[in-house]
């Protein structure tokens, strides 16, 4: 920990940077990248770097959504199923209804938004604990995936749809553009707008926020709806990348998204979290997955190692906060 005099000597911008809550996890990411660049030649190729980035795009996008929910002190377990359902709906409306890609994406996102909105209503109006409400909708959304596909993947989608997941603009894959746009929009939304400020306030102290004349119910519904929307968007990108609507897509995916945002410094007790932190958290997950493959780590061991990395990252963050508190 820096002593006071120490801090005085350092330039102000450096101090600001190190005090930023995303700094410690950024360091973890940098260390991982440097280590991989040294020990694994294939990691260095541009195509691999791009594939790592493509890998974490869905996690980052839905991570940003669930981050907002977690900031308010809630949780969304349904996002993996909503992710899968949105991909299936989009695929189906293009193949069966003959919709063009835009309309298909729109319909998929609409359904995802609907699920998010329903989560919010269940939490706010019926007072269900978020864990339970979204556990139920998780099962409902997944069930719908199977019912409407009868369990078969949906293929034969028009090629125009593949641009979202497989195309590139200026040689950079489209998914990465999507993520960048989402990150910028939500970064600005949360840090610069009245509504964003209120979301943090609600997470810090819901009762005080309500007594400050703010409609906390509306805010909560909004946050859950946005979480559903982003999960849907991520699921549609994945469907486009794979070229099929897979009913099992996104099974267990909610855990990746939640882990990314928590690694990124979002506090499960609410009030704290940042878009940049979540993107870094998702990168860590992506780099790690990729590294384990490149280093030919046994698939059974990968899962275990990821678990430990999550533990380590979150514990390091907690410890640094605890020291800062003292």
């Amino acid at each position, binding site marked *: 920990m820096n002593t006071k005099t120490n801090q005085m000597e350092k330039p102000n911008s450096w101090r600001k940077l190190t005090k930023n809550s995303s700094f410690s996890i950024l360091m973890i990411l940098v260390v991982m990248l440097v280590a991989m660049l040294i020990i694994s030649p294939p990691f260095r190729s541009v195509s691999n770097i791009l594939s790592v980035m493509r890998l974490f795009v869905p996690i980052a996008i839905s991570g940003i959504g669930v981050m907002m929910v977690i900031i308010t002190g809630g949780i969304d377990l349904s996002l993996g199923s909503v992710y899968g359902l949105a991909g299936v709906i989009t695929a189906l409306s293009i193949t069966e209804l003959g919709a063009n890609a835009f309309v298909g994406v729109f319909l998929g996102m609409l359904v995802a938004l609907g699920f998010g909105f329903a989560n919010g209503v269940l939490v706010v109006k019926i007072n269900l604990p978020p864990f339970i409400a979204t556990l139920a909708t998780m099962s409902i959304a997944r069930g719908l995936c199977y019912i409407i596909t009868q369990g078969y993947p949906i293929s034969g989608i028009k090629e125009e749809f593949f641009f979202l997941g497989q195309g590139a603009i200026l040689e950079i894959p489209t998914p990465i553009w999507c993520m960048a746009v989402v990150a910028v929009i939500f970064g600005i939304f949360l840090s*610069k707008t*009245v509504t964003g400020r*209120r979301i943090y*306030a609600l997470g*810090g102290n819901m009762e005080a926020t309500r*007594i400050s004349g*703010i409609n906390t119910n509306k805010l909560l519904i909004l946050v859950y709806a946005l979480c559903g929307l982003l999960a849907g968007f991520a699921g549609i990108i994945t469907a486009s990348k794979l070229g099929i609507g897979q009913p099992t897509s996104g099974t267990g995916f909610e855990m990746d998204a939640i882990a990314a945002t928590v690694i990124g410094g979002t506090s499960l007790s609410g009030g704290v979290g940042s878009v940049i932190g979540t993107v870094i958290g998702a990168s860590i997950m992506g780099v790690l997955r990729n590294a384990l493959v490149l280093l030919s780590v046994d698939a059974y061991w990968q899962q275990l190692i990821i678990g430990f990395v999550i533990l380590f990252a979150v514990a390091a963050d907690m410890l640094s906060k605890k020291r800062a508190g003292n």
Partner: protein
Amino acid sequence: MQNEGKIFLEVRNISKTFPGVKALDHISLTVKSGRVLALVGENGAGKSTLMKVLSGVYRMDEGEILIEGKPVQIKGPLESQHLGISIIYQELNLWLNLNIAENIFIGREPRKNGLVDKVEMHRQAGELLRQVGLDMDTKTLVASLSTAQKQMIEVAKALSFNARLIIMDEPTSSLTESETETLFEIVKSLRKRGVAIIFITHRMKEIFEISDEIVVMRDGELIASMDTAATTENEVISDMVGRSIDDIFAKEKAPIGDVALEVKNLSTRKFLKDIGFQLRKGEILGFAGLVGAGRSEVMRAIFGIDPRETGDIFIDGKRVKIRNTVDALRNGIGFVPEDRKEQALILSMTVRSNISLAALDSFKKKGFIDKEKEKKVAAGYIEKLEIKTPTDEQIVGNLSGGNQQKVVIGKWMETKPKILILDEPTRGIDVKTKKEIYMLMSRLAKQGVAIIMISSELPEVIGMSDRIIVMHEGRIKGELSQEEATQESVMMMALA
């Protein structure tokens, strides 16, 4: 003086200081076996602190405790129990999901072969229930009992510890009259069996009905100790409130204008009954009464926090609909709640963000928060209210209580309220800051803001209010003008 009872407990010169407050200042008293000692005093007089020292929740800074003449150290609740002291708190400490016997013996169930011996447990529990005169099946769930019955369970539990001293903290506050009678029967039978009892209450009638001795506390000091038979209600009340009013109130006469707020026939489902009053521009209206009289509940109902069952609210003569806090804010009402940490501040956020929070819509520029304006406004309040903070980016949780309160007040001033409700605005705040808050209230009143102040500190409510409404058990008990209001007159009304 009768002196039949032997001295069970003696405390000598106990002091306890919390940051900024001397909660107990050299208190000495004796409690005798087979006698009922009534401990009285206003809120914040130090009664609870004293009880918590005796039950081992707090450690005293200095002083001595003797039990039957021998000095003892009470380091924790368990030790206190072993020494024969049992305390029954206002909020009963029972497990609602367990039955009567399980509650009485929780953590020390009779055992046989390592398992709970249920037969023995229920037998002993039944025996204890007989002693407190409660005829019930010991397998009854505590959740299904009335408050009075729960209290009996607490007494039974105390007896099971072989308590020699039972402390009851406002045991009658939630009892009906007949339940109170039953409780008194038990207190009397405990007294007959030689148990010493400390009975904390606000109710004069009960004090004189049940107690043998009365001890009055005020501001952490022991003011008087007397035989019940040798004193009168008036004497006790004047000891409670004291005579000196510190001259820190900065109330200046403000021109009183038209009616700003009128409340008619306001009731809530559980508690409030037929609340009605008027508040004028430039007026400071005090709400007095005991803790739990319903003052905060009235304000919460007006501000749209809690639902109302009946009642109309008029602002500037027009009937308004206030269904939630958003409506209240829109109608020009500001509300500084009593618990600033739980209800007013976002402790994890900065001073600046807290100040702008309620008026955030007015900081909107092209959809974004106008940071420059926000900084300017925050700086303005930091200067005007003398908020001591290194920068406007300081986390509010790191400020002292007084400065936190100023942040809350600044937050509401920025909404430019026509009506400002302040619930215990100076609680836990040092004298200098208190005075600043009084001056601020006076200034706002002069600008035509209509102010309601809830306060449990009588000198404050009398010193600052143009008019005082006194509440008692969910109703308005009466109203006193500034001229009529004395500590005695307010207290009489609040207690009766």
